[in-house]
Every structure is written in structure tokens, then in C-alpha cells.
């Protein structure tokens, strides 16, 4: 009976087929899983890098191969084979010698053994002999005999050994001679090919091999693959992932493989060498890769090994497009800490370099910071670490004595129409307040401010110019006494530290300017303008010259007419902030037109924040109006109001827009007058704005562990305090100092007439003298037309500056004065002789004859040496003045370390210089023969 077909719910063949299909799909997906896990983008980069390295090594090899002198190599090889042939001929001899040497070595061994045994006997005999002799034992004699008999035997063994050794050496020499030629030629060949062999080895190392491929294969690549993720684990740095701190791990070097290697400077990205390996990455640099990593400076996600997820940021629009096409790049919208665009990387320096006026080598950041300081950003915006900055605008406490209402009105309407270079920004009539209605209101606000300032200003006593000024002489003085170190004028513009000297005739009156020039602090005690100690005539002349310049277009600008109803409307707007409509109406009705204007003025000043830069009465304690910027480098992008403006949604794009067009984000919005954005327009150039963006991105309160920060020691702190003062008072406008060339020096053809270089000043002058000089300067170099002004530094400022100079020169601050080096009467005599022979007084004197030559041919008064100079410095200066101050008129008297007077002090140059020094410190000028005062009198123009 045929088996009965079992009824089944499924068809077996069909099931088998499906099973086969599913297995295949499963297998396929398994393969796919393994493959997708295996084929990471970074592996592709690593393979590319290996290829690059191989190519490079091959190129090197080819280059080296070319360099190898083939002819010479052939010659060497010929010599080598010739040597080998000869050697082969003498092979029998060679073998014989080898045998002989082996035999001799054995002999030597035997003799040496015998000698050592005898020596042991001798030691033992000596021990007993000494012992018995000390105890008076009769056996001493026996051992005495033994010792005596041993001595000649030992001697003989020694001689035997020496003679064997000599013979062995002889044979060895003969042996060496036989093989010398072969070894020598082989060495020559090796030497000729050394470089090539080295590169061949290198190439073999980098070249992919089958073994390497197997180790990199999927599933077994966990053992020891050559392609692997590279990472730096940073012990002291953390990533802040909101609520969790994670140790920083940077895997950037997984793809940026050439970053810390030399020779990839021109390689394609991501393999390029770091552009500044001496400053970053290399182990000897201040920022070694192992300690600092990458993302602490560049930003981005260091944990990621994917191009997109590590949050790369393109340099510009063009690169963005390229990346989108090539890598399907898109911005990581939700990842706030993206890689900083390359033009802003310096922003990261401040994470560790805190409390410094300038970060070394971060030029753009420093520039941005300086701009922020110059334009008074810190007046409105609180920024941690910058609280010690100053108000940048002039004080308006007594403005009535200086300016008239019409000028202030025109100025507020448009500051740049008076002076294009002014730092005063434009507050009114900007793009968001440009409607006729807004203009009317702004005009009313301006009139209000003018009224408030006039009403709330004190008055200072002004002195009338006593005589008529000489315009030409005034112009000459402006060029020659130092105004140009801070002010732009006369076609010279080294900086815009002070206002440009133009159009003054349209701005101020003669009595104010004369009084101001005579003593700026009389009008404004807080001004940074120093006192140039001008004589009456000089002040009058300069005033006459400055007042002769007018800005006629500005003077002709029509004054706005303000409608009383607009003023009423605005006053009501303010009153209604605190009062009900009816109460406000009643209040308004009570006010006189003047009172309304003054009220509106006060409100406007407080709305615009004028007091951030200017001292204004009634606003002594008002809080600044701007947003705090202390952590703006990390500000969440979604909290920035981009409005309806189409720019990239990044911090840097927003900052840039805001700086270039501060009101732009009001575009397309409906806002009331007082709701509108009010940051004023500074007119920054693109370059300035970019530097400021770098600065803003640097404002970052990320916590970096103290041990990773660049902490300052006491001396460095003192230097930084000084640096801030130097920046505040623009010392580097005139003086070369702290690695920066004095700006005004570029305008001098004869540098001998330029303000002195102050590099190393702390090693040159005595602290006490410097302190006094800073407080009350007097002319040291009467031939200079530039005048060191009186800044009226107080005790604290002066001592900060002294510390700054002395620390910069790597010296210890010492107010005690000098300990004069010891000397002898003879040395002083010699010093005097040298002083006279070198004719030092030809230049170093101040009297009537030298004045006749014109002031430019004098040198510092040497009677000052005792109080002014440090003793070591004098010797260094005498050694080579040009090396210490290029262009100086002081000649070297000891060229090439030779003295022109070989008879004095044996011609010893150092001794001679010391003798001159000792004489100088004890030098007193000869009393004048004619009845002139002993202290030389210098005309006022030179010595003030």
C-alpha cells in the first residue's frame, strides 16, 4: 500500500524555497551589517594617507637615487670585488692566522690562570706571615721564605703573558690587514647608499602588505589592525555636556594624520601639517598635542570621527557649497560647540590666557580687544575681566564752557559730518528710525539732550589768550612737539588715539582752547590728555593755528526745528511709564517748555546710554544699558534674534551683522519708537568688525582647570598692570616699547630725532629717578623737539609703571638707590683721561656754545648719571651703543672690542669702560669761568 500522503498545512518545496530566500537575505544583511560597520569614512582617509606617504617616500627615493653618483658607485663596487678576489687568494693564509690566534689565546689563558693561582698563594702567605709576626710566632720566618720564593714566579708569569699577548696582537694585525681592503670598500659602498637604504626601509614600513591587509580585515581587525582610530585623551580638560562633565577625548588625528608631522605642508586636507608647529602640537611647543589636544582651541566634537558630526565649519560660502557637494555636509544645528571658522580660532586663546592685556601672537584677537577698548564697548556692556577700563568720551560735566548748543545739536545729528574719523557713533536717524515720524522724534530728543546738558553743566574759569597767536609757528609746533603721537593732523596719521585735529575753529572758542592747551586737567580732571608744559606763547600759537581750521559744511548744516507737540508726545510716553494717563496729562500741563525739554533730555540720555562714555551730571551711578557679554562666545544661537534677516544662523554671522548694521534685526518689524534697537552705528570696516567678532567669540566663561591655564606670577601680573596703563595713555604712540615700534617713529627720516626707544629702560635707569620722572618729566634730550608730556601720574600709577619697566627688563625692583662699584684713585684718573681724550663733553654738555650749533647736537646731561643711570647699563652702552639703540648719535668708541687708546689701563677695553663709568658717577662739571649760573640755563623752548 503506498504510503498515504500526509496532509500538511504548508507545502514543503515552497517552504524550502522561502527558507532559502530568507537565509540568503539574512546572509546578505549580515554581510551588509559587517560591511557597514567595517567601512568607516576615516578608514578611507587613512588608506589615502598611506598612499600619500608611499608616494612621498617613492619620490624621495627617486630623488636620492638621482643624487647617488652611479659612476662612483660602480667604481666602488669594482674596487670591492677586486679586494674580494685578492682576499680569496690569501684565504689559506687567513685561516692559518686565525688558527694561530686561537692557539695563542689559549696560551694566554693558561699563563693568566697560573699567574692568578700564584697570586692567591702569595695573598695567603702574606696573611699568615703578618699574623705570626704580630704574635711573635716563629712560623713567621717560614712564611717569609714562601713569600720570597713566590715573587719571581709571579713576575715570570706576568712576562710570559705579555710576550704571548704581543705575539697575538701581531697576528691579529696581520689578519686585519688581509681583510682591511674588503671591509673598507664595503663601508664606502654602504656610506654612498646610506640615505637610500634609510628611505627604502621607511618605504617598506609604510607600504601596505598582505599581512597588514589580513589584520585589517573585517571580524579580525580587533587584534592588531594598522588602520585604527587615533585619539588623545586629555587628562585635565573636560567637555561640558550640560549636567555631565566628560573627559576630553580628541580623535581629530584619526583623519588629520599629517598634522604633527613635517613634510605635509602642501598636502591636501585633511593631511596638511599644522601651519604653526613650533607654537602648537609639537612636544617642545607651549601647547603640546598630548596635553592640549585640538578641540579646546578649534571647538567641535572631538569624540566624533565623522566629518559632519565632528561639526566642521566652512571658511566661507564657497567652501560650504563645495562641502555640500563633496561630503553631503550640513551644519549640525543642535550642536552648539561647532568648530570655529579658521579666521576666528584665536578666540579660544582666552580660555587659558586670562588677565593679560594682549595674548601673545593672537594679533586679530588683540586688535578686536583694542577696538572694543577704544570704542568704549565696555561702557555699555559689562564684560567680566574688563571692568577696569575707562570712559572713552570726554567729560561733559562742564561742557557749557566748551561747546555751544548749536554745535552739540549738529554733532548729535551726525558726528561724522564734523569729522569722519570720530569714534563717536551715530545714534539717531539710522535705518530703523528713518521714517519722517521717527526723525521728528529723534530731533526732539536731540534738542532735549542739548537742553539737559546746558542746564546741568558747571562752568570753569577760562583764561583769555594774552597775546595774538602766530599761526605758522603754531602749525610748526603741532608737527614738532609731539601732538602727532596721539592726534591725526598735518597729513600724519599714526593712530587715532586722540581726536583728529581738524575743524576746531568750528567747534571751540579761543579762551577754552588756550586754557585747555595750557592745562587740560583744569577743564577736565579725568582727561587722558597730558600737559605739554607749553609756554603762553606756544599755547597761543597752537590755539591760533587749530582755530584757523574750519569745517564750513558742518557749520552750514541747518538746525532741525522741533515741534512742541512732538515734545509733548514724547514726554507723555515717558510719564505714562509710571503714571496713569490723566495724571500724566496733569503733570505735563504743569511743565514749562524748558522743563519739558530738560525732562525729555534726561530720558533720552538714559535711553541712549550717553553716560557710558561721558561723565554727565545726574548719571553718576546709572547702570549701563547694554547686554552683558561675559559669555557671548558660547551664547546659544537660538537666543539671538535674527528677525527676518537672511544670514547664516551662527554666532559669528549675527555678531558681524550687528556690528556692521546694529539696527538691522529690526528690519521688517513693527515696533514703537522706544522699543527699537538702540545700539549706535560706529561705522566699522569689515576688517574691524571681523576682529571684533573674534573678540566677542573669545568672551567665554568655560571653566578650564587652573593647572591648564597660563597663570601669571607676581612679576607678570605687575607687567600686565603696566601694560594696561601703557595702553590707556598710548605710550607706544611715541616710544618703542615691549616689542612694539613707536608709531611716530615711522615719520622720522633721522631717527636720532625721534622719541627715545624704551626697550630695556628698566635696566637702564634707576627706579627712584624713573618714578620722579614719570610724575614730573623734564627734558633729558634737549635736542628733541618732541616733548615728554606730564601725565600727572599719581603714586600708584607711577609705581606700577616702574614695576612694569623693571620687570620687563628682568631686573629686581629696587628703590634703595645704587651701590657704586669700588674703584681706585688711579682708575678714576684714567677714567678722567679717557673722558677727556674721547672728548665726551663735545656733545654731553649744555651751555651757550653748544646751543649755537642748533639744539640737535647735544646729548644727555652727564651730571644726571648719578641719579639716573644704573651702573651696569653704562658699561653695556659704552660697549656698543648701536646694538642697544639703532640710529643713536652716540658713537661707539670701542669698535670690534679695540680701544683707540692702547696705553691706558693696558688697553683693556672692559677696564677702560669701567674707568669711564666710575669717573661719570663722581663727575661734577667744571664751574663756569664767566659769571653764569652754575646750572646751565636752557631757553624755554627747549627745556620748557
Amino acid at each position, binding site marked *: 500500500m503506498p504510503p498515504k500522503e500526509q496532509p500538511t498545512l504548508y507545502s514543503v518545496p515552497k517552504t524550502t524555497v522561502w527558507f532559502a530566500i530568507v537565509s540568503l537575505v539574512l546572509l546578505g544583511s549580515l554581510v551588509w551589517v559587517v560591511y557597514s560597520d567595517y567601512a568607516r569614512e576615516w578608514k578611507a582617509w587613512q588608506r589615502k594617507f598611506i598612499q600619500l606617504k608611499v608616494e612621498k617616500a617613492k619620490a624621495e627615493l627617486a630623488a636620492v637615487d638621482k643624487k647617488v653618483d652611479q659612476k662612483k658607485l660602480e667604481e666602488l663596487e669594482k674596487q670591492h670585488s677586486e679586494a674580494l678576489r685578492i682576499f680569496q687568494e690569501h684565504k689559506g693564509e687567513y685561516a692559518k692566522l686565525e688558527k694561530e690566534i686561537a692557539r695563542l689565546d689559549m696560551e694566554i689563558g693558561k699563563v693568566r690562570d697560573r699567574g692568578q693561582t700564584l697570586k692567591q698563594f702569595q695573598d695567603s702567605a702574606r696573611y699568615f706571615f703578618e699574623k705570626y709576626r704580630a704574635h711573635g710566632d716563629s712560623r713567621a720566618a717560614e712564611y717569609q721564605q714562601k713569600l720570597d720564593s713566590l715573587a719571581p714566579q709571579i713576575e715570570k708569569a706576568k712576562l710570559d703573558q705579555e710576550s704571548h699577548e704581543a705575539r697575538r696582537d701581531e697576528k691579529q694585525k696581520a689578519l686585519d690587514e688581509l681583510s682591511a681592503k674588503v671591509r673598507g670598500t664595503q663601508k664606502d659602498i654602504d656610506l654612498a647608499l646610506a640615505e637610500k637604504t634609510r628611505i627604502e626601509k621607511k618605504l617598506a614600513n609604510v607600504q601596505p602588505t598582505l599581512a597588514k591587509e589580513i589584520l585589517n580585515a573585517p571580524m579580525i581587525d580587533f587584534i592588531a589592525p594598522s588602520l585604527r582610530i587615533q585619539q588623545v585623551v586629555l587628562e585635565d580638560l573636560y567637555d561640558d555636556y550640560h549636567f555631565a562633565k566628560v573627559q576630553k577625548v580628541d580623535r581629530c588625528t584619526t583623519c588629520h594624520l599629517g598634522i604633527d608631522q613635517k613634510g605635509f605642508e602642501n598636502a591636501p586636507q585633511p593631511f596638511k601639517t599644522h601651519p604653526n608647529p613650533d607654537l602648537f602640537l609639537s612636544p617642545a611647543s607651549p601647547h603640546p598635542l598630548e596635553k592640549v589636544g585640538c578641540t579646546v582651541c578649534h571647538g567641535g566634537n572631538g569624540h566624533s570621527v565623522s566629518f559632519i558630526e565632528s561639526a566642521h565649519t566652512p571658511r566661507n560660502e564657497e567652501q560650504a557649497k563645495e562641502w555640500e557637494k563633496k561630503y553631503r555636509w550640513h551644519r549640525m544645528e543642535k550642536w552648539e560647540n561647532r568648530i570655529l571658522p579658521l579666521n576666528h580660532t584665536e578666540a579660544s586663546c582666552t580660555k587659558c590666557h586670562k588677565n593679560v592685556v594682549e595674548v601673545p601672537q593672537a594679533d586679530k584677537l588683540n586688535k578686536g580687544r583694542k577696538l572694543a577698548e577704544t570704542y568704549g564697548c565696555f561702557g555699555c556692556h559689562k564684560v567680566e575681566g574688563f571692568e577696569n577700563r575707562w570712559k572713552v568720551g570726554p567729560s561733559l560735566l562742564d561742557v557749557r564752557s566748551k561747546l555751544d548748543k548749536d554745535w552739540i545739536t549738529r554733532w548729535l545729528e551726525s558726528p561724522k559730518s564734523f569729522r569722519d574719523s570720530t569714534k563717536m557713533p551715530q545714534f539717531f536717524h539710522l535705518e530703523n528710525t528713518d521714517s519722517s515720524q521717527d526723525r521728528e522724534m529723534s530731533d526732539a530728543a536731540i534738542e532735549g539732550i542739548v537742553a539737559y546738558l546746558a542746564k546741568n553743566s558747571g562752568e570753569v574759569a577760562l583764561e583769555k589768550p594774552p597775546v595774538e597767536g602766530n599761526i605758522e609757528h603754531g602749525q610748526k609746533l603741532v608737527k614738532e612737539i609731539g601732538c602727532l603721537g596721539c592726534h591725526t593732523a598735518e597729513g600724519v596719521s599714526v593712530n587715532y588715539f586722540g581726536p583728529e585735529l581738524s575743524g576746531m575753529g568750528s567747534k571751540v572758542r579761543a579762551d577754552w582752547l588756550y586754557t585747555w592747551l595750557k592745562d587740560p586737567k583744569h577743564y577736565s580732571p579725568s582727561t587722558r590728555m597730558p600737559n605739554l608744559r607749553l609756554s603762553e606763547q606756544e599755547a597761543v600759537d597752537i590755539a591760533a593755528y587749530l582755530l584757523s581750521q574750519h569745517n564750513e559744511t558742518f557749520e552750514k548744516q541747518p538746525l532741525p526745528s522741533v515741534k512742541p507737540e512732538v515734545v509733548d508726545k514724547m514726554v507723555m510716553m515717558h510719564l505714562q511709564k509710571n503714571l496713569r494717563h490723566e495724571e500724566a496729562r496733569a503733570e505735563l500741563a504743569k511743565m514749562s517748555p524748558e522743563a519739558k525739554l530738560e525732562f525729555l533730555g534726561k530720558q533720552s540720555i538714559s535711553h541712549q546710554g550717553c553716560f557710558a562714555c561721558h561723565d554727565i551730571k545726574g548719571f553718576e551711578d546709572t547702570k549701563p544699558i547694554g547686554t552683558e557679554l561675559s559669555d557671548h562666545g558660547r551664547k546659544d544661537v537660538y537666543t539671538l534674534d535674527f528677525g527676518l534677516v537672511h544670514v547664516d544662523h551662527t554666532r559669528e554671522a549675527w555678531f558681524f551683522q550687528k556690528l556692521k548694521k546694529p539696527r538691522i534685526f529690526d528690519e521688517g518689524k513693527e515696533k514703537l519708537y522706544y522699543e527699537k534697537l538702540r545700539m549706535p552705528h560706529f561705522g566699522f570696516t569689515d576688517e574691524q568688525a571681523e576682529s571684533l567678532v573674534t573678540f566677542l567669540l573669545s568672551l567665554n566663561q568655560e571653566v578650564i582647570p587652573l593647572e591648564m591655564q597660563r597663570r601669571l606670577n607676581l612679576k607678570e601680573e605687575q607687567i600686565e598692570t603696566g601694560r594696561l596703563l601703557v595702553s590707556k595713555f598710548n605710550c607706544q604712540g611715541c616710544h618703542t616699547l615691549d616689542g612694539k615700534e613707536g608709531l611716530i617713529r615711522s615719520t622720522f627720516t633721522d631717527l636720532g630725532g625721534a622719541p627715545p626707544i624704551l626697550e630695556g629702560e628698566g635696566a637702564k635707569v634707576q627706579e627712584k629717578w624713573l618714578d620722579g620722572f614719570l610724575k614730573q618729566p623734564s627734558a633729558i634730550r634737549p635736542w628733541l623737539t618732541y616733548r615728554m608730556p606730564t601725565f600727572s601720574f599719581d603714586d600708584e600709577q607711577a609705581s606700577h609703571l616702574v614695576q612694569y619697566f623693571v620687570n620687563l627688563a628682568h631686573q629686581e625692583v629696587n628703590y634703595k638707590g645704587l651701590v657704586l662699584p669700588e674703584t681706585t684713585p688711579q682708575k678714576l684718573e684714567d677714567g678722567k683721561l679717557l673722558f677727556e681724550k*674721547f672728548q665726551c663733553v663735545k656733545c654731553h654738555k649744555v651751555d651757550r*656754545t653748544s646751543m*649755537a*650749533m642748533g639744539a640737535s*647736537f647735544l646729548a644727555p646731561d652727564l651730571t644726571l648719571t648719578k641719579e639716573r643711570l644704573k651702573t651696569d647699563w653704562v658699561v653695556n652702552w659704552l660697549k656698543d*651703543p*648701536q646694538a642697544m639703540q639703532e640710529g643713536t*648719535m652716540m658713537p661707539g*668708541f670701542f669698535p670690534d672690542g679695540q680701544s*683707540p687708546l692702547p696705553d691706558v689701563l693696558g688697553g683693556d677695553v672692559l677696564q677702560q669702560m669701567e674707568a669711564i663709568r666710575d669717573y661719570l658717577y663722581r663727575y661734577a662739571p667744571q664751574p663756569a669761568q664767566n659769571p653764569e649760573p652754575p646750572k646751565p640755563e636752557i631757553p624755554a623752548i627747549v627745556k620748557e
Partner: protein
Amino acid sequence: MKKNKVSMMITVLILIFQVALIPSAQAAAITGKIAFEGTAPASPPMAMDADPNCQMMHPDGVSADDVIVNPNGTLKNVFVYVKEGLGDQTFEAPKEPVAFNQQGCQYHPKVFGIQVGQPLEILNSDNTLHNVHAVPTKSTQFNLGMPIQGMKLKKTFTAPEVMVKIKCDVHPWMAAYAGVLKHPFFGVSGDEGTFEIKNLVPGQYVIEAWHEKYGTQTFSVTISSADETKDIAFTFKAS
């Protein structure tokens, strides 16, 4: 005696060799005159009263020396040199120094040429302090005090520069100018107002004439044969 004869013969041979070689290779020359047009500016007497030593050396006074017009209507102290046309040729600096004297509180010569690396021998013939302060912009400055009468110092310039001013800070009227060149093809007009640039090979040259007060003028010249002597003329006008 024999030795002497041999060495003499060698010397003679060398001389013949030299004579035979050099002129055949480089015999062309450029000569010329520096004419001056217009009236010579008045030369005010120099005030040397600042240093009595200097004053005593000129009992009859001395007039300013920035413009000297010779009696034959030519201009003295004009530096003439080959500015372009030598290509990449290099010329060894002569070991022979250029003598530079400070005498009577004036520089002698006032205008001169010198090759890069050629020593400048500076002499102070005066019994007073001079400082030679050279203010080149391309070489390093030097400023040497020379307090002793008769003392000599040697210095060199490291880079070509036309002209390098040399001044004395003690005596403001003293000024000299050195034309520092990489080659020996230069001349300075003297009392006759003439100059000569010798030993040139045929070629195209740009010649420049420089004067302290009247600035520079250039002239292009072609030398076609090895024994040619080209005569060129520069004219400076009174300003």
C-alpha cells in the same frame, strides 16, 4: 741669484699673461662730462663756530660744499654708475681699501663709490672728535667715535645702496655720500667735471648720474665693440 732670476721670469710671465688677458676682454669705456646750466647757487660760508678746533683750521672761512660748480661750467661730485645691464655677473670685491679722510672738519672725498665688501679705511686727520655715522638702510648702520688724531678704522658695507649718507653728529655740516655697488663700474666727476667708467664689455647699459642736491638722471647706452669708448653727457640745471 738663480732663484731670483726664476722668480723674476715668473713675474714677467704673469704680467704678460695679465696684460694679454684683461684688455682684450674688457676694454670698452664710458666717459663723459657733467654740464651745469644756469647760475651756480651762492655758497654761504659754513658756520663752524660750534667747534673752535674746526674754525681754527679755516682761518679764511670755508663755503658750503653741497653744490660745487667748476670754473669750466661743470658740476663736481656727481656719482655716475652702471645701474642696469650687468645681469647676474658677480665681481669680487677689491682688497684695496677706499681711503676716506676727515680733514679740516670736512670729508675727503665727499662723494665716492665702493664695492660691497670692499674695506673703507676711515682716517681722522683732525685734532678733534669726529664720529663717522653711516646711515644705510640696507646694510647695518655704524657710528664710530674717532677721538684721536691720526686714528684709522676699517668698515665694510654688506648690501648695495645708492647712496649711503655718512654724517658726523658732532659737526652737523659734515656729510659724505657713498655709492655702494656690487660691481666696479662707477666714477665721480671731479674738478674738470668729467668721469670715466672703464673695463666694460659690449652690451646695453643704463647709466645713472646722482647729485646730492639735483637728484638723479639716467641714460641708456649701447656698447657694440670691445674697444669702443662711448662719450655721454649729463646736464644738471640750477633749480
